[in-house]
């Protein structure tokens, strides 16, 4: 996936997030921060901060494992804190997440099913030695936005009738954003609500084995450059 595709997906996710408190997962979701409206969205990180600010200037900041105290959920990447930030322990951090207090999360996905199941943490046949906070995040957030490439690096579909990879959670995805389309789940059904004009509905269907309906108000957009798609 090219850098510009990732940034387009991130930008498009940010359009879904105009206010509130949001947790961004690792990968494409991390890029969403660059496109959020300043001050209107507050970022939470599960290692214990509400009010994540930008990364410090790497030229002025040396990471010393012995003394560093402020990082993101990678555990090693330094960040800054915004003026309204607060710090807390893991128990309170997951009270925020599992307890339903986050307005939204943007999370990377390996597969999403037509019923909103998410697979994001394990691949069959490989050792599964890490899950992190993804399951708690997805079970609790009011909205779960899956940010993903439409196809796997091998060209396989990722939006499926049923997930074939181990699940992160069942029926929790609210919105899927890919480089080609946006799908939303409404009352248990999956709707295509937006697509780019460079492919046809039939081509999209070929890449998307999940069953979905085309929303009456489907938007067709031009994916010209990040931050500037034009309605056609």
């Amino acid at each position: 996936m090219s850098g510009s595709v990732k940034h387009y997906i991130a930008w498009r996710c940010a359009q879904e997030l105009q206010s509130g408190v949001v947790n961004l997962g690792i990968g494409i979701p991390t890029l969403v921060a660059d496109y959020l409206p300043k001050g209107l969205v507050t970022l939470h990180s599960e290692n214990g901060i509400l009010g994540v600010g930008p990364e410090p200037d790497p030229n002025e900041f040396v990471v010393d494992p012995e003394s560093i105290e402020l990082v993101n959920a990678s555990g090693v990447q330094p960040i800054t804190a915004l003026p309204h930030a607060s710090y807390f322990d893991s128990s309170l951090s997951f009270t925020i997440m599992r307890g339903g207090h986050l307005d939204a999360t943007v999370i990377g996905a390996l597969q999403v099913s037509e019923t909103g199941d998410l697979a994001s943490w394990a691949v069959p046949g490989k050792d599964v030695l890490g899950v992190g906070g993804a399951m708690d995040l997805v079970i609790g957030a009011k909205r779960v936005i899956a940010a993903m490439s439409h196809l796997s690096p091998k060209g396989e579909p990722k939006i499926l009738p049923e997930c074939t990879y181990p699940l992160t959670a069942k029926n929790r995805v609210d919105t899927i954003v890919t480089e080609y389309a946006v799908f939303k789940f409404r009352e248990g059904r999956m709707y295509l609500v937006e697509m780019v004009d460079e492919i046809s509905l039939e081509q999209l269907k070929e890449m998307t084995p999940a069953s979905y309906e085309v929303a009456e108000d489907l938007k067709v957009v031009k994916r010209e450059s990040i931050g500037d798609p034009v309605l056609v």
Partner: protein
Amino acid sequence: MMSATLDQIQTGVQFLSADEAVKKIPKAASIMVGGFGFPGMPRHLSRALVEQTDIDELTLIMNSLGSVSTLNALFEQNRIKKVIGSFFSTNKDLVKAYREGKVEIELLPQGTLTEAIRLGGAGIPAFFTPTAAGTDLAKGKETRVINGREHVLEHSLTADVAIIRAHKADKAGNLVYRKTAQNFNPAMATAAKLTIVEVDEIVEIGELNPDEIMTPFIFVDIVVKREEV
């Protein structure tokens, strides 16, 4: 009413060196280790555990092990029996020991891990959580539908020892943490029979504002001041 002057106050909290402190850890102990990535990781106590003791058959309870950890030598030396936590994929020594069948790994969602520790310290033995319902991590676990939603029964965690890190202790053993270095440390302090904390600074009783103390001394047994290395 009882009153006490500063020089009369004794809480029983010991102030030892890292080497002295880790020698209190028994063989085959279960050990909670604080930290989330670099912040809050008790690096001095970890190094002392590796270098100054030869105890083995250990169970570690910790969120994660990064690619580089002060605890890695424990896997090379076959001193770990089991690891309980949420993210171990990136630690090559642990992954190798796991593949060779030398270490058992129990994976828990991070929020389940922290709540299991919190409730372990609070005297509540088990709890139902919606996290992981319908996933592989719920396999073999009791489930129950509560308020129309499936929940998984998880057991709380306690340990023989917690090695944790804080920013400051006072001479009573009260602790304060800084920034994202809190993470699992306050909960772990409550959930172990023996809690050993390493701190950057030790101050006189009265210098910490009681409103700001995050772990009261009742949860602390041994305080170790980090020395320059």
